[in-house]
Structures are given as C-alpha cells and as structure tokens.
C-alpha cells in the first residue's frame, strides 16, 4: 500500500511540474496579455491541482486540506484570469496578431497611454 501511494504521488508530481512548466513557457513565449492568460490561467493552475492531489495522497490524514485548496483554486482562478483580461481590455491593451475583436462595438476602451 505504501509504495503504491508513493508511485501515484510521484507520477502526479511529475505531471504537475510538467504542466507548470508548460504554463511558464506559455507565459514567456506568447505575444500579448490575452494569449498569455490562456497559458497561465489554465495550465499553471492545473499544475498546482496535480501537486495538491499528490499531497493529498501522500498524507491521507490531512487530505481534506488538499481537497479544500483544490476546490478553492479551481473556483477562484478562472475569475481572476477573467478580471485581468477585462481590465487589460478596458485599459486599452492592444491585441496581437490578426484582429478579430468581438467586444469592440460593445465596450468603450481607454487609450493605451495610461497602462
């Protein structure tokens, strides 16, 4: 039973680290704020979730803390990423790449000078 726990925890740790790595690489390589939010908002959060799963498996007595933190992270992180994106859009941060801006008519945008 002991080694099974450790093997599963190891796999989850490596998976979580790989996902965080992908998130950070996405944060470095992608051109502008909105595309970067894709990488960091989704991927590095899931890296954290796999890490928390590994902790919950390794220390089964206090597993409820890990589960609680997983639930909180999955709940709060999309909202935070959304707030960053809408703030950047309202502040007038330019979109990189071929522009397909669905929000252009509906929302007035500040000029980029005050960002």
């Amino acid at each position, binding site marked *: 039973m002991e080694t099974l726990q450790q093997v599963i925890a190891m796999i989850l740790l490596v998976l979580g680290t790989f996902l965080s790595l992908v998130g950070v690489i996405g*944060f470095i390589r992608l051109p502008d704020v909105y595309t970067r939010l894709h990488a960091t908002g989704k991927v590095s959060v899931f890296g954290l979730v796999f890490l928390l799963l590994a902790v919950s498996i390794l220390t089964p007595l206090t597993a409820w803390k890990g589960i609680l933190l997983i639930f909180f992270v999955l709940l709060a992180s999309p909202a*935070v990423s959304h707030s960053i994106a809408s703030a950047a859009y309202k502040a007038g941060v330019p979109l990189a790449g071929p522009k397909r801006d669905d929000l252009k008519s509906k929302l007035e945008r500040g000029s980029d000078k005050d960002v």
Partner: protein
Amino acid sequence: MQTILNIVIWVVLALHLIMILVAAWRTWRSENSAARLVGLDVASTLTTAVLILVGIIGNNSLFLDVAIVTTALGYLATVTIAKFISDQRVF
C-alpha cells in the same frame, strides 16, 4: 522507493524555483502593466506550489494552511490590481 520519491520531490522543488525566477525575469521585461500582473499571478501560483512541496518534504501539514492563505491573498491582490489598471482607482 522512499529515496526515489525524495529525489523526485527535490528535483520538482528546484524546477519550481527556477520557474519562479524565469517568471520574475519575464515580468521585469514585459511591456505593460497588465502583462506584469499576469506575471505576478504566475509567481503567486508557483510560490504556493513551492510551499506545498516544502510541506511534503517537512512532512508537516501546516504548510497547506499557509498555502490556502497565500492563494487567497494572491488572488485578492491580483483582482485589486486588475481593478486599478482598468479604472485608475480601487474603490
């Protein structure tokens, strides 16, 4: 099996620390404050991960409580800064 797990945990911890430095460097180099805010968000997620890994190494579940608090504060700070970026005021 225990030694392999220890090695894996230490390697994962080192990787996370390197990632924090890389995210901080990219935040320093980014062009506008919204991108820097994304960098701060990444850094706070990664510091929570480092906290959890230290909790695994120290075999102490106190770090999970600290991780919960830092995650909550990190998200709160990020949302506040985002509001400041969009409206030039917080309240």
